[in-house]
C-alpha cells in the first residue's frame, strides 16, 4: 500500500542525463541495435548499467547516474529478499523476489530513459516497514493531483 508521496531528490532533481536506446559505433550501452533489433550483449538493463558504472571511458555524470540507479535497484531487491516472512513458504518468497527483480528492472528503465517522469513514493507494508518506490511523476506526482 502506498502512502502520500514524498520527494526523494537524489535521482530526479539533479540529473540532466538521459539514457540512450540505440547503440552507436562508439557507444554500446543501449538496449537496441541501429537496425532496431535487441542488443543481446547484456541480459538486461541492470547488467548493462553494472558494466557501465565501472567503464572509466564513460563520462562521470553518466556513470554517476548509473550508480544512483543501481543503488536504488540493489536496495529495492534486497528489501524483498531480506524481508522476514515466517508465514510464507520458500516458493512464495522466491516468487516475491522474482517479482521485485522484474519491478525493479521496470523502475530502472524509467529512471534511465525517462528521468523527467520519475517520482519517489514511500510504500508502507502491512507490517509497518517502509520502502522507497518509483512511480510515474505524470500520474502520481504533485501535478497529477492538481488537475
Amino acid at each position: 500500500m502506498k502512502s502520500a508521496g514524498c520527494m526523494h531528490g537524489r535521482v530526479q532533481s539533479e540529473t540532466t542525463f538521459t539514457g540512450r536506446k540505440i547503440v552507436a559505433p562508439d557507444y554500446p550501452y543501449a538496449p537496441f541495435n541501429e537496425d532496431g533489433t535487441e542488443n543481446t550483449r547484456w541480459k538486461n538493463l541492470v547488467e548493462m548499467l553494472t558494466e557501465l558504472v565501472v567503464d572509466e571511458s564513460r563520462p562521470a555524470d553518466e556513470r554517476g547516474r548509473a550508480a544512483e540507479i543501481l543503488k536504488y535497484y540493489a536496495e529495492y531487491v534486497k528489501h524483498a529478499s531480506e524481508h522476514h516472512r515466517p508465514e510464507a513458504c520458500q516458493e512464495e518468497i522466491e516468487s516475491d523476489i522474482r517479482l521485485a527483480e522484474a519491478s525493479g528492472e521496470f523502475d530502472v528503465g524509467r529512471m534511465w530513459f525517462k528521468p523527467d517522469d520519475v517520482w519517489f513514493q514511500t510504500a508502507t507494508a502491512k507490517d509497518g516497514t517502509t520502502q522507497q518506490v518509483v512511480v510515474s511523476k505524470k500520474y502520481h506526482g504533485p501535478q497529477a493531483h492538481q488537475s
Partner: protein
Amino acid sequence: MEETHKRFRGKSLAVQLQVALRDAEALQKLETTDDATISRMKLVQSRISSLTLMMNRKRADQVHKLNEQLKSAKSEIERLKLEIESLTAALAAKPSTISQVSAIEQALAKFEASKGGKL
C-alpha cells in the same frame, strides 16, 4: 452382562527351554532308569530340540526384519543423497538474486573507489 475373555500371555520360549532343561537335569539325577523314565527323557529331549529350533527361527526372523529395515534405511540415505546433489546443482545453476546484487555492490564500490582516486 457380557462375558469377558481374559487373555494370557504364554510362557516365552526362553522360559519353556529353561523348564525343559531343569526337567532333563531332574531326570538325569534319578538313580533308577526304567522304560517310563527313558520315555520321559526322550520327550524332554524332543522338547529341548523343538524349543531350540523355534528360538533359532525366531532369531532368524528378527535378523531378517532388521536387515530389511537396514536395507530400506540405506536406500533412503542414497535417495536423499541424490536429492541433495540435484538440489545443490540446481541452486548452483540458478542465477541467484544475491549474486546479482553483490555484483552490483562490487561495481558500485569500484566506482566509488575510482571517484575517490580522482578527487
